[in-house]
């Protein structure tokens, strides 16, 4: 065992102050990635600043044509929310299939997107639904939030407070899960909104990405058949023991077609 300071804060300002004072501090949301990493000694922060006591960060509400989800809202709460299920069923469906029940009852939307794991599910929702990420400093468009593998637009000391999702006309998320971890080998969110069609892919590349060729085809005809013949280049996709880049490229097409069919 090695020691670190544990601090449970009750406000965002308190968290920012604690982080500023710490030598090598780390914010903890649900801890579903951070704690296993610390147990493996792959990270040893001097201070752990636990956000779970910040009540203002949790909760789901509808504001006009948007669903606003607090950063510390657990996946299980998003999956079970009547508000989310009626307005954006694709989002509730996505949240209900993250990891396992333990992860869904601890993990949070803010923690997931701040970590920006290339195979996490929520990035596909943030980009695919054209969400806005709210922080203690500003608002960041979903399209600008993820900047690379485990990289986001967040600055040091910047804390996500909420994510707001515009309600789409229709949307669906389909993933090919790794059978052990349930991480997305490939996951695709397809959404039709007033502003056009969005197709966002997670799991396949170093970071979530959109597929403009599919979006253009679906804007003309929102049907799985419209995607026939549209492929994604394997060049920059991930290869690991579970799937090659070529296999992932193929899965993008399959998952996208299934998502369009599921969106109806």
């Amino acid at each position, binding site marked *: 065992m090695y020691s670190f300071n544990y601090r449970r804060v009750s406000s965002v300002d308190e968290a920012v102050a604690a982080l500023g004072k710490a030598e090598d501090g780390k914010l903890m949301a649900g801890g579903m990635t*951070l704690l296993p990493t610390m147990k*493996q*000694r*792959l990270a040893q922060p001097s201070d752990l600043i636990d956000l779970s006591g910040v009540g203002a960060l949790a909760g789901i509400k509808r504001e006009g044509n948007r669903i606003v989800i607090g950063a510390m809202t657990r996946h299980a709460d998003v999956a079970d929310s009547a508000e989310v299920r009626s307005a954006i069923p694709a989002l509730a469906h996505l949240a209900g299939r993250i990891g396992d029940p333990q992860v869904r009852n601890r993990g949070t939307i803010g923690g997931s997107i701040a970590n920006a*794991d290339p195979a996490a599910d929520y990035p596909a929702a943030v980009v695919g639904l054209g969400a806005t990420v709210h922080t203690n400093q500003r608002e960041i468009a979903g399209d600008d939030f993820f900047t690379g*593998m485990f990289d986001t637009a967040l600055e040091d000391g910047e804390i996500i407070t909420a994510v707001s999702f515009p309600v789409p006309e229709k949307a669906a998320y389909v993933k090919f899960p790794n059978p052990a971890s349930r*991480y997305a080998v490939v996951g695709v969110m397809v959404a039709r909104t007033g502003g056009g069609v969005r197709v966002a892919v997670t799991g396949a590349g170093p970071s979530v990405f959109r597929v403009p060729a599919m979006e253009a085809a679906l804007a003309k005809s929102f049907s799985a058949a419209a995607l026939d013949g549209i492929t994604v280049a394997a060049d920059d996709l*991930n290869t690991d023991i579970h799937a090659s880049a070529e296999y992932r490229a193929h899965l993008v097409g399959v998952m996208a077609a299934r998502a369009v069919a599921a969106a109806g």
Partner: protein
Amino acid sequence: MEITGEFAIPAPRERVWEALNDPEVLRQCIPGCESIEREADNVFNAAMRAKIGPVKARFTSVVTLTNLDPPNGYTIVGEGKGGPAGFGKGSADVTLEPQGDETTLRYRAELQVGGKLAQIGSRLVAGAARKIADDFFGKFQEVVGGETPPSA
């Protein structure tokens, strides 16, 4: 696992070759490199801090330059130990080809990781390695291309 890449560097080949053998340039370009010291002619000791997502580990590594073929290229071999985190080792064949006033740098790298890094990070190793290689050569491009040759 093998990764390859190609960068156009706006500097003549001689200059690029010198930079590839300059520990100070290497220190600036290796992501998270805290220090690098020459141990023997073509052997360097480096201390690095790797930060990828939640993982933050300190590595000490030995970097050896072999197959020296000035100014056409060399093989850079690195072996890093991260204490409880595990180890990583890799080598990259680097070749330089003049293109007028510019130089095309190509690399073909092979990488292996072991220990806990490999156990829990296997699905991320390829992506992380590519990111590190691209960061290194991208920075190298910036450092070498943006500098006037030192007046020796």
